[in-house]
């Protein structure tokens, strides 16, 4: 069930340039069904900024009733959010959307987790849950530059981790796809910029693959029709999927990205 809750901030840290990790106490944690779900955050009880910000859940702890989100400070809303301190309360709507299916893999299989930039965070909870199920994970994380890299150590604890930077200042120079061609795996789970998702879909159409999409949202619950996309089997027709409530995770080939 989706809840609207005032959640107390436990901690907030800048973990890379303009990348913030915020942890809150929230009873809605008990409602989280899968890694890759997101929350809709109202950053101020004010008219401006008016709308909520959709941010994915990067990890959660059911025992403590806490969840962590990682976001990039990129505009008016996220700047306000980054200024909030532990102890303050945050108006959160969630958990929203459908996450990554972890049950699609068998014990002993290998999952390739591919993240680009601010698409990396939801893969962390996914990685943790896959390992717990006896699935091997390989992480390929792409960033613009060295100062934007985050969570490499955390992912390393779970399994093999490769980092690529566009400018070559850290790890492999280039894109995530440059790293993947040398790896063996059974399925792909990915979240990141649309060009990255498109490239993965094109290059690995023979693999089982789940992609988390990003789109500008209004309500976040499926009522406003801001974030719709065409279905792949009806690319110019009237049928559609809503990224917020049918996604944000879709099986590759399900929708037009």
């Amino acid at each position, binding site marked *: 069930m989706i809840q609207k809750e005032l959640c107390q901030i436990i901690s907030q840290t800048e973990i890379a340039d303009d990348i913030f990790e915020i942890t809150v106490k929230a009873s809605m944690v008990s409602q989280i069904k899968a890694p890759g779900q997101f929350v809709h955050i109202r950053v101020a009880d004010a008219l401006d*900024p008016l*709308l909520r910000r959709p941010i994915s859940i990067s990890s959660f702890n059911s025992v403590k009733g806490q969840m962590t989100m990682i976001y990039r400070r990129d505009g008016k809303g996220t700047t306000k959010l980054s200024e909030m301190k532990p102890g303050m309360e945050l108006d959160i709507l969630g958990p929203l959307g459908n996450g990554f299916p972890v049950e699609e893999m068998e014990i002993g299989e290998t999952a390739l987790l591919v993240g680009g930039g601010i698409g990396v965070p939801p893969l962390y909870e996914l990685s943790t849950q896959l390992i717990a199920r006896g699935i091997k994970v390989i992480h390929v994380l792409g960033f613009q530059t060295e100062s934007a890299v985050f969570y490499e150590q955390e992912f390393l604890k779970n399994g093999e981790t490769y980092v690529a930077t566009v400018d070559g200042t850290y790890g492999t120079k280039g894109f995530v796809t440059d790293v993947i061609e040398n790896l063996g795996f059974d399925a792909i789970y990915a979240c990141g910029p649309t060009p990255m998702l498109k490239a993965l879909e094109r290059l690995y159409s023979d693999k089982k693959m789940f992609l988390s999409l990003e789109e500008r949202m209004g309500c976040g619950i499926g009522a*406003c029709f801001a974030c719709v996309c065409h279905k792949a089997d009806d690319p110019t027709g009237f049928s559609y999927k809503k990224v917020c409530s049918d996604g944000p995770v879709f099986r590759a080939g399900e929708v037009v990205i």
Partner: protein
Amino acid sequence: MNRLNVELPGLNLKNPIMPASGCFGFGREYSQFYDLNELGAIMIKATTVEPRFGNPTPRVAETDAGMLNAIGLQNPGLEKVLSEELPWLSQFDVPIIANVAGSLEEDYVSVASEISKAANVHALELNISCPNVKTGGIAFGTIPEVAKRLTRKVKEVSKVPVYVKLSPNVTNIVEMARAVEEGGADGLTMINTLVGMRLDLKTGRPILANNTGGLSGPAIKPVAIRMIYEVSQAVSLPIIGMGGVQSAEDVIEYFYAGASAVAVGTANFVDPFVCPTIIEELPVLLEKLGFEHISECKGRSWKKHGELTYHRA
């Protein structure tokens, strides 16, 4: 004592608060948050003869104290609305106001004729003011003679009262209101969104794929108040007011301007509970202001002293 019940053509409302068309889908999503029976009415998403996918994304962009949208009247089409959405809504004891849209006069007439037969549709809202479709819509909403003609045609076929949704994107809103009154409208809903635009700082290009979109939210409330103030003095039709309503205070301001009921749009996206919250807060605010009933607030901005109900505050 019910301080909030309102009677309008076709609509016997337990309270004057309803979600605005396009901001509430067909109610399903919000029914997971609260009992829709609490609402005065529901204005459902615009319905066209055929299904529509709408515009490419991005379809929304935030603005200062508001938002732009260019959804493009996405809807499943008349047949599905009649066979799936309205029957689902019939589980609630809430009058439905069906928003009717189209590109041609005959489209409006077809939808109005069929949808007004549904048992839970108590009124139509004629959408002659959508700024986000290339043909029709807005043209009907900006030329008085065209609006009047369309209103008359729809009135001829509708089984329920017809409210016409006015566009603020006109020079003279009173002229439009008078035209649809002459066309036989039973009421007005106002205002639809204001045409606006936002540009991306990095690319310099419009953020919306449609380039322009309709501005809604608190930013447009003063425009709506002014227009309702003018129109309510010029015509004798009841007005359902809308534009940036977020609180019980906003609702009272709309009544002061001349509205008889109020719709809540964009605020549903910010707080899914906004409608029931306003309904709960209204009686308290009326008491504080010294009104026995919300109808006493109506037109207070322009009524002469002799016409006003005694104010004990």
